[in-house]
Each structure stands twice: as structure tokens, then as C-alpha cells.
């Protein structure tokens, strides 16, 4: 979503993005030309008249589970966004019985929070697991 019109979205997709991604952008490109939606989400830069790089993860109940906002010159890490979605999906599927520690990615161990884990995280989770 950006403040550009759907016509500009079409041109960007058709003349440039479709050369990077076969078949073009596979999801809807939204237009927020007045910045009204961005303002509600706290990412509309009124002085520049644009949206900043805000990214929101919304679960199947419509609840915001996470967000990240960057100023324009620094791009995002899509892999990290996907990792977060996978982690939130795992937690949701476990109905909250499992949690993903720092550095978790699919295949790595999860934590099962409860009285038995208090003071014992050090036994099952090592600091090098925070890194890839």
C-alpha cells in the first residue's frame, strides 16, 4: 500500500515489477492516496505526504500480532517477516502452549512455558541458538 493511485500501481507492476517477479505482483497493490489509512496505522508522514515503510502482521481474528516501521532509505528483510509469520502460526496452532525463543526458525526447538521451566531455560536453550 502506498499513496500512489491504482493507475501508477498498474504501470509499476506492468513495466518493472513483472520483470522481477514472473506474472507480476501476486497480491493486491492498495492505494491510500489521502494517507487516511496510513494515519490510522501511525505510519503516514504528513510533511512528505507519503507512507513510511510500515509492515503489520494481522492474524485470522484481525488482531495485530506485530509490526515494524522503517524510514524510507532502508529496505526490509522479507525472510524475517516470513519467519515471524511462521512463529506466530506455530504459537497459534499450539493454542499458546508453545513459545518460540530468540533465534527460532522452523525445525528449531520451542519452549513450553510453565512452572517447570522457571529458572530452567538455561538448560534447554543456549545463546548460540539465537543466531543462524
Amino acid at each position: 500500500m502506498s499513496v500512489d493511485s491504482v493507475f501508477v500501481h498498474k504501470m509499476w507492476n506492468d513495466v518493472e515489477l513483472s520483470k522481477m517477479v514472473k506474472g507480476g505482483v501476486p497480491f493486491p497493490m492498495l492505494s491510500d492516496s489521502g494517507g487516511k489509512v496510513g494515519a490510522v496505522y501511525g505510519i503516514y508522514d504528513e510533511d512528505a505526504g507519503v507512507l513510511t515503510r510500515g509492515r503489520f502482521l494481522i492474524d485470522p481474528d484481525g488482531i495485530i500480532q506485530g509490526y515494524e516501521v522503517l524510514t524510507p532509505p532502508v529496505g526490509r528483510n522479507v525472510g524475517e517477516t516470513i519467519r515471524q509469520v511462521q512463529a506466530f502460526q506455530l504459537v497459534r496452532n499450539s493454542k499458546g502452549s508453545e513459545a518460540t525463543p530468540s533465534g527460532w526458525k522452523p525445525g528449531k526447538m520451542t519452549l513450553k512455558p510453565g512452572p517447570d521451566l522457571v529458572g530452567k531455560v538455561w538448560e534447554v536453550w543456549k545463546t548460540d541458538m539465537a543466531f543462524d
Partner: protein
Amino acid sequence: MPEELKVGCARPTGGPVGEPAKSDKKEPATPTKEKSAMIMIGKKAPDFTAPAYHAGKFTSVKLSEFLGKWVVLCCYPGDFTFV
């Protein structure tokens, strides 16, 4: 002579030049600008509709139509920006 704009990552914008026009309106004693509630993790994502371009068609997208699915809402400064 028009100056060539330095191309950066933000979309170039203009604005009015000179002193701001004087307004007869008195400043209200209390600011009336609506304070929008800040979004919060763990809280409902504000619903909205927005025009969209998708699969060769112009459509309208409503956030609440995606209930039951995970949504990544991704915003950026402008089409044809570099990052």
C-alpha cells in the same frame, strides 16, 4: 531556471512558498485535532477499504474480508522507489 532534483529514496514533494496566508479564524482554546488512537499489538487492526490493482484489474479491498487468513499489510513511500 528549473533546478534538477536530486533523486533519493523519498518521493520529491513541493509546497507553498512564502509566508503562510493569515487566517481570520481565532485559534481555538483547546486543540481540536482529533487524536487518533495508536494501534497496539494484541488489539484489533483498524478496518479499512482501499482501491487496488490486482491481477490486471482495478478492485476494492476491505481488510475484514481477510478474516480467517493471515495478512501482511506492507506500506512503502512510493511506486518506482529504489529500496
